[in-house]
Each structure stands twice: as C-alpha cells, then as structure tokens.
C-alpha cells in the first residue's frame, strides 16, 4: 500500500491501547476514591515509614486533611492528640487526621503509646532520617507539635506550632485560614513567646548542674523548673506533666504550648531553644 492512500481502521488501534492505560491513573487519583482506615470508634492503625504516610495522604485526596507532627516525649503533643482524634471521629470521612511521629528514634515507644491511648486517628512512625527528610520538605522548624491543614486539592491552608484546643482544631478542619483561627492554645503552656525549661536529673549530677546553668542563662531563674526523678513528689509531678523518663539528665525547652526535643548537653539545649523561639 502506498503512503497516503488512506489508513485502515486497525492503523489507529494503538491509540485506544495507549489511552487504556489512563484508566487506572484516573482511578488512582480520583478524589476520595478509597477509604483510609476505620471511620471512628476503634483504634486507628500504627504504620511505619514514608511509604505508608504517602499512601495515607494519597488516599485522603479529595478531602480536607490535618497532619499532626508529634513525638512521645513532647508533653503538649500528648495532650492535644485526643482533641485531634475527636475531630476525626466527628468529621471523617470529609476530614482525615493523621498523626506522624517525627521525634522518636525507637518505634517501641510509639507503639506503647498507641496501644495505651487507643486513639482512632491513624498514626505513622518515621525513623530519624525519614523524619528529617519530611520536616525539610515541609519546611517545619525544630519544634513540636506542629499541625498542618491541607485543603481537598492538597494545597496547604494553615499551620500552627504548639498545642491547641478541640475548638481550634474543629475550626481548622472547617477550612479556616491561620489568621482567622481562634488563639486556642491548649493547657497551661504559659506565656506565648516566653521560654520555659524543664530540667530533669539528679541535682548532684554534674550533667544536671551544667544543664541547669544553661537553662537559667536562657530562660532566667523564673523560667526553669528542676525535677529529680528519684524524689517521689517530683516523680509524680513528672507523670502529671508527662515528662519523659530517660537514663541521662536532660532539659526540655518549651515556648507556650510548643516544646523542643529533650537536650542532654548545654550546647544542644541552646540550639534547640533557639530553633524553638524561631519556629514558635
């Protein structure tokens, strides 16, 4: 057959063959085409790794999404997670809420908390490298908790650092932008913008003394509390404040209802506090 003498129907069959591959693409990205997890009532899953997080986020396309970054050692985080779980219980499936642990080097601590708390929102644990990549990509300062709201189209609508109340998160889930949201700081986090440091360790330990001196230099005498885990009264206070128990003395800086990671050296404390003040 000479060129240009007209094409037979089969000459065009390659087009539907190639276009057929768009069918699964459309099914995968169609808004809200898949359910993520349980709707409410029962404990949500604990997943591990960035792949699991991306799958959760992808399955949430087409609905509003709150992503909460937290860690088991972050007292304000533990306090606000039940609020976020309540938001999910009330608004799922139109709103999804995912809690991402980005500060726990060991998944076991997260698993223990997950099993004890029995919250309905799905949780994801990231190891240190994956957590660092995520916070770099999302441009999150070294402060916890952080909650980011995404619209149904995946665009970021608002983000807040520091713990918030149930009312605040309900307004956030309704699509309010950061400026219009109520202040809603949770608990007794203290004055916003003022540094407070909890130092935990035996008072006679040189490490504790060094941390205490650095804490007082940063936050002043009024801004520092010392807890001796061997003292029953201090130990009870640590439990009520949900301060983590570590084998070595540490200092945890907080600004308002946002906390930095526990620091075991004065230089680490200074760096964490500076990041916290910059990010809160």
């Amino acid at each position, binding site marked *: 057959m000479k060129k240009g003498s007209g*094409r*037979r129907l*089969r*000459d*065009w*069959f*390659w*087009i539907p*063959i*190639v276009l057929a*591959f*768009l069918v*699964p*693409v459309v099914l*995968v*990205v169609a808004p809200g085409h898949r359910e993520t997890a349980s709707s409410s009532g029962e404990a949500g899953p604990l997943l591990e790794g960035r792949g699991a997080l*991306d799958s959760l*986020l*992808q399955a949430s*396309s087409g609905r509003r*999404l709150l*992503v909460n970054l937290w860690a088991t050692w972050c007292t304000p985080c533990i306090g606000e997670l039940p609020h976020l779980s309540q938001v999910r219980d009330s608004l799922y499936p139109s709103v999804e809420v995912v809690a991402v642990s980005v500060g726990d080097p060991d998944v076991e601590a997260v698993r223990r908390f997950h099993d004890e708390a029995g919250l309905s929102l799905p949780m994801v644990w990231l190891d240190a490298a994956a957590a660092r990549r995520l916070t770099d*990509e*999302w441009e999150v300062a070294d402060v916890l908790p952080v909650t980011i709201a*995404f619209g149904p189209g*995946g*665009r*970021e609508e608002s983000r807040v650092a520091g713990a918030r109340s149930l009312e605040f998160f309900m307004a956030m889930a309704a699509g309010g932008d950061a400026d219009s949201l109520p202040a809603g700081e949770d608990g007794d986090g203290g004055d916003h913008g003022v540094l407070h440091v909890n130092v935990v360790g035996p008072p006679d330990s040189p490490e504790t003394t060094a941390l205490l001196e650095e804490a007082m230099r940063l936050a002043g005498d009024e801004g520092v509390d010392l807890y001796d885990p061997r003292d029953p009264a201090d130990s009870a206070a640590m439990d009520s404040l949900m301060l983590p128990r570590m084998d070595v003395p540490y200092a945890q800086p907080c600004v308002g209802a946002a906390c930095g990671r526990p620091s075991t050296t004065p230089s680490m404390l200074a760096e964490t506090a500076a990041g916290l003040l910059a990010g809160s």
Partner: protein
Amino acid sequence: MARLQRWRIARRIIQLGFLGATNLYLAGWVRGAIYTGSSKMFPIPGLHCYSCPSSVLSCPVGSIQSIVSSPGFLGGLSSGRADALALIGLLGLVLLPAFVAGRIACAYVCPFGLIQDLMYRIPAPRLRVPASWRAGKYVMLVLFVLLLPMVLRPVPLAGGDPWFCKVVCPAGTSLAGWPLALHDGGETLQLGWLFGWKSAVAALVLAWFVFSKRPFCRVLCPLGALWGAAGKASLVRMRVSEDCIDCGLCRDVCPVDIQINLEPASAECIRCGECIRACPVDAISHRPAWRKDHEEG
C-alpha cells in the same frame, strides 16, 4: 544463511552475557528480596526492573520517573538543585549508546528484548504490527514517564508517582511483581486491584510476544522511543547500496520487522546487524554519520 546463523548465535551469547552480568544477585530469587547495594545507582542500558530479585543495576525508565516525580522537581531544576539536575546526568548516561549506534542496546543488552526474541521462536500464527502503531511508545514516553509523574501530585507536598511502572510496565510485573508476590504469599505486600490490572497487562503483552516481532519494543517501550529519537543523530548509521534487489529478505530476518532498504534511517532499527548478514547481494552495511550516502532516505 550460515553466516546469519553464526551472527545470531553470537548475538544471543552477548545478550545472555549481559543478562548474567546484570543479574548477579541470584540469592534474591531464593530469599524473595532485592539487591540494595551501591551499584543500584547506575542504570542498565535496557528495560530491567530495579525490583527484579537478581538485578544489581537500576532501570533507566524507573530512574527518570523517580527524578521527575520528586518533590519540587520543576523548582529544583530551575534553581539548580542537585537532585533535579541529576536528570541531565542520567539522560546523558542512558543516551550515550544511542548517540553511538541508535537502539543497539535493544539488540544486545536489554533483557526484555531477549525475552521477546526467544518467545517469538515459539511456533504460532504471525501477526504483523502496523507501522503506525510505532507512535505509541512516544506517547508512553511523554505521558507516562515524563508528564504524569511530573504534574500529578495527589499527595500534599510529596512527590508524584512513577506512572509507567505503576500502570504499564510488563517487565516490572513479570520479573519483579510476580516473583516477589509469590515469595510473599500475600503476607506483607498489599496486592490490590492495581496488581490485578498490571498482571492482566503483563499476561497480554507476554502472549503478544509469541505472535509478533518485539511488539513491546515497537509499540510501548519508552526507552525505545528515547533511543530511537537520539539514534537519528547517531555516529554509526545504516547504509543500503544501489545493489539492493528489493528481495525483502532483510524484513524477514529483522527482529523489529522493518525493511531497511525502504527506511535505512528508521528510528526502529535496533542495529542488530542481521539484515547485513542475510542480504544475498551484500547491499546493507554500517556507515559513519560523516560519510554522505545518497541512498539514505
């Protein structure tokens, strides 16, 4: 035809040699795990899944998608971010053989090409693929390897998806998905409907290999599209002299079903050299690009 047979055997030995050299991690088939050593930084010049249990190199098509689908790729490209600029280095590496001799890697290196060559030896009715279907692989390259991974971002602030791997690639399904799924027994891998879709695609494409000459290379392979386009500027090209008697034997022996005397500069030609050995009047040869040839169409 004796010299054609000798050439074919030599080509088959080279193909098998490359297959062995790029699949040294044979323990992967026993353990149901993939190799994760540093050699996986480098792409094999052929379509061979990163997740094939024995593969010690990566797939160039998968690597391209991985880069263009990374978070903030377009911004990174314009601002000179290293991971985005890696695309240029990767393309340079992948295109190197094509600038020398077009799709020569399809003929001698690509494991999926070898599978097609071998399966076409199974006695069966023969189906000719219309020349117009060749356009399909360019659409595959642009749409599923470049455009969709670059622009479809359903996950907030995250990257895109490698759509060619995810919904098309029968090499990935047959040489990685199926063996790993069999090993896993459905315990940890989440084999959803997409796995069913890809399995159906792979089964159909593999069956097609029995009836048509290298149909995947000609209709669907994005790597073939990339190499075919680059091959237009290759250093070594095909030449057909005026001695050609238009017997059509070149097409009969051609693994990709082209008649070289009609289209000596075809982007489809995989430079296997079989037509050169089959030509009864020695009218077909290689020629360097800088030597003018009035017979080239």
